[in-house]
């Protein structure tokens, strides 16, 4: 199996371990990743809050660059926000030729063109559909049995496009974690928004949502996530939030490929896990 790879800005800085774990896990699964040369920022939530054309053109640049490599390929995208931005342009290309023409008029400034062929897919989609729980199961050497995990999907890998899972009650991650031997924490917060985009600009709103999610994860040993925004939002402010509400809601938040990678016997160091807390060290022993 072979995919083009769009890491996105976060995976080069604050979410470096997501990049490491994704590459290590895909390598162990004999999946080849070809990083899109010269890829650029997808615009995140900023572009669509400022300018409609910018929100279309920024993801389109990377789609156009991907087509110069292999226009028949799928792009693997680990970040849910990047995925949604790329996916939106892909959908427009299929359904709205006028807007696609407008996008290409902008891309022409960089001598680029997007024909709408190359298709962005979320990493969870690829893990759930192309590799599947059976594909994971075949590679398991260190079962996660005894570890209780709360699978957290968040928003943008599920909505608004129904691609690989139910946007209200998703289960794709559950099957993968179960294949790795983990126990699942039953909860109703799996598809709730964590309001990551507000943590910087309206923290009092965001902290309320994060608190509710963390509180409902109580009883689990860890949360599994498939988005760098969710990971940082759910894990990065736990001390502050615990003290705001006078309740200890701290819990480690791992990337799905880190947990699957551990179960596949990939050394913790290669999954970026040495960079984590003492509780992680215990987990990887």
């Amino acid at each position, binding site marked *: 199996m072979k995919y083009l790879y769009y890491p996105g*800005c*976060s995976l*080069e*800085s*604050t*979410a*470096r*371990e997501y990049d490491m774990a994704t590459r290590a896990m895909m390598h162990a699964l004999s999946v080849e990743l070809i990083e899109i040369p*010269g*890829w*650029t*920022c997808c*615009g*995140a*939530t*900023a*572009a*669509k*809050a*400022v*300018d*409609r*054309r*910018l*929100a279309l*053109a*920024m993801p389109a*640049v990377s789609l156009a660059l991907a087509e110069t490599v292999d226009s028949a390929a799928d792009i693997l995208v680990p970040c849910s926000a990047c995925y949604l931005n790329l996916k939106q342009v892909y959908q427009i290309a299929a359904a709205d030729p006028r807007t696609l023409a407008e996008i290409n*008029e*902008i*891309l*022409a*400034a*960089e001598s680029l063109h997007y024909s709408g062929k190359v298709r962005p897919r979320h990493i969870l989609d690829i893990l759930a559909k192309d590799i599947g729980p059976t594909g994971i199961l075949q590679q398991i050497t260190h079962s996660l049995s005894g570890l209780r995990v709360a699978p957290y999907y968040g*928003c*943008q890998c599920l*909505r*608004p496009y129904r691609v690989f899972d139910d*946007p*209200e009650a998703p289960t794709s991650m559950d099957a993968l974690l179960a294949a790795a031997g983990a126990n699942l924490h039953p909860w109703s917060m799996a598809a*709730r*928004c964590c*309001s*990551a*985009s*507000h943590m*910087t*600009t*309206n*923290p*009092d*709103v965001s902290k*309320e*949502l994060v608190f509710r999610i963390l509180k409902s994860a109580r009883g689990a040993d860890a949360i599994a996530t498939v988005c760098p925004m969710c990971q940082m939002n759910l894990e*990065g*402010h736990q*001390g*502050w939030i615990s003290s705001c509400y006078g309740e200890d809601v701290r819990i480690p938040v791992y990337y799905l490929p880190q947990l699957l990678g551990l179960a596949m016997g990939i050394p913790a160091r290669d999954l970026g896990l040495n*960079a*984590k807390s003492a509780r992680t060290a215990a987990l990887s022993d």
Partner: protein
Amino acid sequence: MNRKQQTPQAWIRPEQPDTALERVREKVRTCIQCGTCTGSCPNAFAMDATPRKLWRLVLMGQSREIFESRTFALCSDCYCCTLRCPRGLALTDAMADLKQIAAAGKHGGDAACTAFYSAFLQSARRYGRVQETRLMARYLAVMTPRRPLMPFRFSGLGMQMIKKGKISLRRPPAGRSLKGIFARIESMKDGQ
């Protein structure tokens, strides 16, 4: 316009037509005010006008009330309302439209959001990619005079990330700049 001569439905027209609102109004034209959007919105508890009320205000062209509210600025793009609206309306896109109108300076908008988005896009324009720690530094430099306590909350997260070896202070690796794209869009500016 003489109000007395208007058709019975005319009361849903704005008193002073706001052309910027037109594309938003088009998106929510068939809203039946059922409130599913409000009931689904994780941020509704913090909004001054609920999403349902906001769509009503859009239909009534109440620009001032719309743009004085924090409602659209507090939309976190979760697409719950879009997924559940029984009329199938593109509500998350409509929220983005309102953010764009505010950002274009036609109306107010949330100061913190504006500062953050402009720092973000500046970085993307110049380097093609955004280096998050630099972005935060720039954002805090703009915001601190207004909200002096802000950096303290992030310093904890910053220390934690340095300990974990997550923070890299190097420039974003070579992508390509987006200057050409930004310039082309600038030159096209006129009715979004």
